[in-house]
């Protein structure tokens, strides 16, 4: 699983951090998404899919 985030789209809603805190964080200055792990282990796949699904700005895409 490979994750790509689009900082331009991100509106700093923080949904990804709630869904998958091991994979996503937010920048302190403006809340924009920070990808902590581009290739997370399979045990986190469910959380990551959730994160992508609840991101209101469709800023997270997953390439399998």
């Amino acid at each position: 699983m490979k994750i790509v985030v689009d900082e331009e789209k991100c509106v700093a809603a923080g949904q990804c951090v709630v869904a998958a805190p091991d994979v996503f964080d937010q920048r302190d200055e403006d809340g924009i998404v920070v990808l902590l792990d581009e290739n997370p282990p399979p045990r986190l796949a469910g959380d990551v899919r959730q994160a992508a699904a609840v991101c209101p700005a469709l800023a997270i895409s997953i390439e399998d």
Partner: protein
Amino acid sequence: MAETQTAETRVPEYPGVRDGRCPFAPPAELLQQGKPLFRARIWDGSTPWIVTGHAAQREILSDPRVSVNEKLPGFPYPTQAMAETVDHRPLTIFNADGADHVRIRRMMTAPFTRNRMEKLRPAIQQFTEELIDRMLAGPKPADLVTALSLPLPSLMICELLGVPYTDHDFFQEHATVAVKRDATAEESLAGMQALGGYLTQLLEKKLTEPENDVLSDFAARVKAGELELPDATLLAMVLLIAGHETSANMITLGTAALLENPDQLELLRTTEDPAVVANAVEELLRYLTIPHLGQRRIALEDIEIAGETIRAGDGIIVSLPAGNWDPEAFPEPDRLDLTRAARHHHAFAWGAHQCLGQQLARIELQVVYRTLYRRVPTLRLAVGRDELEFKGDSLAYGVYELPVTW
């Protein structure tokens, strides 16, 4: 509606009224159209599109051909006052599209990151305990709205912004008028002006005496030439107004709903698992969806959706409560089930304009719901359910008072 009406006038009315027997449910006529979007008549006689389907809402709210620019002709205003004051309304996160929206929004997002909100959790817990202590020490019955629901979010937003809570009577009054559905144009403008004057003064003070709060952060941007003082005032005003009533209504209405569903209340009361509490909060957000006047939009181009064509210039209203009661997305939507997977709800809307303060709201609600029923296990309504007066007339749905005893 009378049977003699012609087909043409038989468009449903929006927003419609909530059924007194189940005031938590969205108006029935919104749920029973059998399609995800349809035309309905609003207060000014126009017939914008009403989007009720969950999937259709996601499409519309993330479509770049759909705009929040309220100055475009055909925009479906929620109220007459909003229509009359549109020329006086500056650009804010609510009515800016695209790059403008991103620029304004990014100036406001820093204080609301998930991690910063988590750091506030102990303070939220402490305020909650103190407010409950005070309620328990005072007379019975008590009104939950004044005892807990309003003061808690109010205290938190003041703390965050750096606004003295001792002034809250003043700005609460003006903030309420500014968003009241039946306020006249003059009233709402006067409310905004009073609030604006107050916040400008405060910002000026923080220019020279900065503290560790959001207003000081805005003031620093003014000093650095990134922001004009009137714009900083506006950002602050948006946060102050938005941070006020919304969580308050969720606390009160959530409690009213839980008291009617004792098995669900019991689940919340007895769990030790923060994940269960967090999930319960999402379900209550879905079930109650307090932003009930609809997200207002206008189409910039023709859009094909669910077998219909929305034309350029058509008004669009996205009914969040209806989307959250769409059985395709939430089976048996009328059942409050704190264990269901409800995270994909639209209570904070969807798309680039999704609520900025949602992580603060989540934590406030998690703390309150987890603490209140545990500390006051015998909590119950002090009046009959029929006596509750529901707010059909303000931006956020709720009850005016919730008399409780224990």
